[in-house]
């Protein structure tokens, strides 16, 4: 019985070694098509991760740049407002009383409506101050 218990050890070692060598062998020679495809995808994913990191940093930086650009354009503290270039008249916009968002909460439909007052000029922009109202079922 003791003998049979000790038999496990070399068998397990052989199995593990066989498994490891077949894996490394497969990797070294790029083995099966599946293995090759997995290697290619893993390499592509590493590239994608690096690219995402760079783009996230770019987006993070843009946060400050946008705030500065808004200040420079004179567009500050706009609570619920429609803004269009003063030079270009956009017909029908902003349309007072129009639904600007539709959504569902717990299966019930809601909508958000914006009502605008007469526009004022702010630098090169036309700002229409609005009142945003959420209407439920």
């Amino acid at each position, binding site marked *: 019985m003791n003998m*049979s218990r000790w038999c496990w050890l070399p068998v*397990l070692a052989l*199995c593990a070694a*066989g*498994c490891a060598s077949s*894996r490394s062998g497969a990797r070294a020679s790029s*083995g*099966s098509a*599946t*293995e090759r495809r*997995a290697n290619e*995808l*893993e390499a*592509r*994913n590493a590239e*994608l991760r690096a*690219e*995402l990191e760079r783009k*996230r940093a*770019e*987006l993070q930086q*843009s*946060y400050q*740049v*946008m*705030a500065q650009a*808004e200040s*420079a*354009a004179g*567009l*500050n*503290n*706009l*609570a*619920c*407002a*429609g*803004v*269009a*270039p*003063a*030079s*270009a008249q956009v*017909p*029908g*916009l*902003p*349309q007072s009383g*129009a639904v*600007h*968002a*539709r*959504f*569902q*909460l717990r299966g019930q439909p*809601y909508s958000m409506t914006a009502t605008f007052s007469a526009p004022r000029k702010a630098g*090169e*922009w036309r700002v229409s101050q609005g009142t*945003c109202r959420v209407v*439920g079922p």
Partner: protein
Amino acid sequence: MRALSLGLLVVWAALGAGCGTSAAARLRSAEQDNRLLTEEQQQLDKALQSVSRYTEGLRSPGKAGRSFSMYYSPAALEQMAAQLLPMRMPARTFDQRLLGEVVIERISDVRFGPLNTLTCRAELRGDNIRYNGSVPKAYQAEVRKFQSGVAAGVVADLVVELSMGSDNALMARAHASRTKLKAHSSSQSEGMLRNALNERVLRLPFTFDLTLPSGGAPRGMVLTANHLVVTYAP
């Protein structure tokens, strides 16, 4: 001897399976990663395009052409949320074994941050909350404390990621970063509440269809330190 052969067979099968599926499992996992990474990249590309279009438009309004933007401040979003509240939901939304209701009473402290992410605070309260599962005697006092803690109120700090989805929809993915019971604070109960919020109540993103009745479609969305800006192309 029979036991030994049987054991060997099991070990062999297990190791064989491990060796045989490793490449397929790696490929499956890499494919899944690739899908998620590609999706995230598309979202980031869209966000970066919106940022550069917005910044260029601000610097030279002539280039903005016939576009039109809606600006929302953190205070405006709080006001709109207040119009939806209080909102009641069955407590079983949090956990199947809970009876009663959860009332969302207030959304406050909305702050806009980088990476199209905003943070806010939600205040909730349990109304007639009862735990319906079987509770060993030793834990019954804890459950009573939890029930009265939830009745006194819960503060949840939320992180909300905004992105433009398909079909002119603004997607808001919310995640509770912290929950705090106003009474009977306990890290275990608060952790359970946070998990229930994230895994059940906030599992799916909130979707806002931004199509205008005139047919105007949102061309982009940016979140700056001061505003949530949705730009429409008529």
